């Protein structure tokens, strides 16, 4: 039923690939953030982190659900989340970085949120109605994520010498993983042409602005744009993803076909 709303003119393989990319970003980051549950340094953070994870898992359901429809092989969002191996995942490397201390988790969130926010904002105008609809809903949630992660990056950057040091270290460590957000390949090109997604590089200026302003307010030094890691968008990940999946997928793998 719902499938009818998708433009048949658009390259369906590219569309599927895009939906896996955006869905896997939400899934893997949601997983990482959820690892904090019950372990954060303040009750308010426990609540906020759980809330972020919850939003991301909700978005995963929508994106991967649509991916399954586009693929047309009867795979559900759960099938895609739980029954693919690492090389089939399309998330960027940034979201699979280990949590580290809460400063690193928040910095990762901020660098991602700033991009996610701009991406979803653009996707609200997608020629694919279903994508625009999901983006509309996700955009509201992610606007809030960005407000929060930006605010904390600023406050902790401009906090004590210790909190400043930790935030700067987190920034320096994570910076080489930000370049992948703005890379582009044939999949992107096909969908950009069809008006489905924005040109990845077109989000860079806006992202730079958000990031530069927050870092400056937080008295943090923006790293130079050096070498950038990439590979996740084409299924070449870091060694961390395998461990995330072995845990996440255990029940579905150990009890194939069971319903829960």
């Amino acid at each position: 039923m719902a499938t009818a709303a998708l433009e048949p003119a658009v390259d369906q393989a590219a569309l599927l690939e895009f939906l896996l990319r955006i869905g896997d970003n939400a899934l893997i980051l949601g997983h990482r953030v959820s690892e904090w549950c019950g372990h954060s340094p303040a009750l308010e953070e426990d609540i906020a982190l759980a809330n972020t994870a919850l939003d991301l898992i909700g978005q995963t359901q929508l994106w991967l659900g649509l991916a399954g429809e586009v693929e047309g092989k009867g795979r559900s969002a759960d099938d895609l989340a739980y029954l693919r191996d690492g090389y089939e995942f399309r998330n960027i490397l940034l979201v699979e970085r280990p949590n580290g201390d809460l400063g690193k988790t928040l910095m990762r969130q901020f660098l991602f949120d700033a991009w996610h926010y701009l991406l979803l904002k653009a996707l609200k105008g997608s020629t694919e109605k279903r994508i625009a609809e999901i983006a509309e809903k996700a955009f509201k949630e992610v606007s809030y994520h960005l407000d929060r992660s930006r605010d904390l990056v600023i406050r902790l950057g401009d906090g004590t010498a210790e909190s400043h040091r930790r935030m700067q270290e987190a920034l320096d460590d994570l910076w080489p993983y930000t370049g992948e957000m703005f890379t582009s390949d044939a999949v992107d090109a096909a969908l950009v042409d069809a008006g489905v997604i924005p040109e990845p590089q077109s989000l860079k200026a806006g992202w730079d602005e958000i990031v530069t302003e927050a870092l400056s307010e937080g008295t943090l030094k923006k790293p130079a744009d050096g070498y950038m890691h990439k590979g996740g968008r084409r299924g070449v990940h870091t060694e961390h993803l395998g461990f995330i999946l072995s845990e996440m997928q255990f029940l579905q793998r150990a009890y194939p076909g069971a319903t829960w």
Partner: protein
Amino acid sequence: EPHERAFQERVDAGQKIEPKEWMPEGYRKTLVRQISQHAHSEIVGQLPEGNWISRAPTLERKAILLAKVQDEAGHGLYLYCAAETLGISRDQMYEQLHSGKAKYSSIFNYPTLTWADIGAIGWLVDGAAIMNQVPLQRCSYGPYARAMVRICKEESFHQRQGFDILMKMVKGTPAQKAMVQDALNRWWWPSLMMFGPSDDASVHSAQSMAWKIKQNSNDELRQKFVDQTVPQAKYLGLTVPDPDLKWNEEKGGHDFGEPDWEEFFNVIAGNGPCNAERLDARRQAWDDGVWFRDGLTAHAERAADRRAAAKIAAE
């Protein structure tokens, strides 16, 4: 004492006591102990369930579990706030938790070993908690009673979700059904112990009842829980692991066996399967977060200074 008499009359008349009103020191102390213990239970209670978030079997179950654990943190927040109205700070309460001085519900010292445990916690542990908490909505202390209204609403939602997990599993494969029975076997007795030992002999209880902090005896609530839960177990096709369990027509309730109180006191004494790990996890979260809390405080102070300076400059 005229103060005490007037206080008791107000309690007897069903009036709510509010933070700034006079209250006996014992009443305040009892409430602080009970509310903070309750708050700590919510916080520590995040851990056994949080243990399965990363392994939840579907995206929907993961989302539901995340929401539930988030609710628990929220309950902790209401309860710490309610306790703070009695003149103790949240940090003081944490300090008591981390030093081992304050207790939390012993049930959270048991491990969650399979996904069925997540269902069993919702069904049995939240079920027992609700049984304990419903009367607290009518507690004489206003802030506690009001927090309880909100908490009870969410807890019954959680209980239904837990039952739903088990329903799905008992209708599933033999392995899934076996997991559910195994979970019931492990969680049944600890759940009955959640009501505490028989309170025949407890003077403490009598005073709490008079103050309307407590409204029912432990045994009364335990009986009610058994009578409510046994038919649900039957509905799920499960065997309650109590050979002495049977319907007593005369009393209109179930007869049932005695929990292993030695185990109960052992767990209270710190020898439960997970006591050390639960407390270590909370302590570590707190200790690892010093820099984070200090950073936020320093920023807030600096921002306040800047505002003050700007105000002076503007004048």
